[in-house]
């Protein structure tokens, strides 16, 4: 098992990748996922986070098998 990471829209371009797969060791929160997946890029202001497709915050717990997504404010409709 591992943690799946996804980046969307302008965040994908800023970080330079659309997804990543991380070993769950040493990961406790979404903030840890961000730091490892982005090589310590500073968090983007107003970015949104989803864990298993539910909105979450950076300090929320992440476990093995989770899918964590980072993206800018949404603009559908």
């Amino acid at each position, binding site marked *: 098992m591992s943690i799946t990471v996804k980046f969307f829209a*302008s965040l994908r371009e800023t970080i330079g990748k659309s997804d990543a797969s991380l070993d769950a060791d040493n990961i406790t929160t979404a903030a840890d996922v961000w730091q490892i997946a982005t090589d310590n890029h500073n968090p983007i202001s107003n970015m949104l986070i*989803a864990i298993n*497709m539910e909105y979450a915050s950076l300090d929320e717990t992440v476990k093995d098998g989770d899918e964590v997504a980072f993206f800018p404010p*949404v*603009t*559908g409709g």
Partner: protein
Amino acid sequence: MSVELRGKPFDPWQVLQAYQNAKPELAGKFGATSIFVGTMRDFNDGNDVQAMTLEHYPAMTQKHLEAISSEAEQRWDLLDTLIIHRYGEIQPNDPIVLLAVWSAHRSESFPACRYLIEELKTRAPFWKQEMTGTNSRWVEHNTLG
């Protein structure tokens, strides 16, 4: 309740007619149908816009549009709801979203339809990238309703 994401252009009026025809159980029960169609403009934030790409997070989009529909059905006395939303390449004048709400009375359908579009715009993970001349830019915020 129906939620559908489409990668190709669609005619909202034909879709609506077909959907309603396929639901004979609604006939005679609804007295109000409130509809919202969102269509791509050829201008935004002071610039001409030639085309747009609508990116989304497919499974999360479907999940949240279904959640928003369920919330509306719990909050108002509705007979049915329909959400169809585009993704992919979009041209000016193309419909982006179709929302329809059926209820016995307008006092239920109007606020429910408004709820669907406002919640969709703040919760459903879609992102617009506009082509303005030779440049492209991400739309960073929704326009005021």
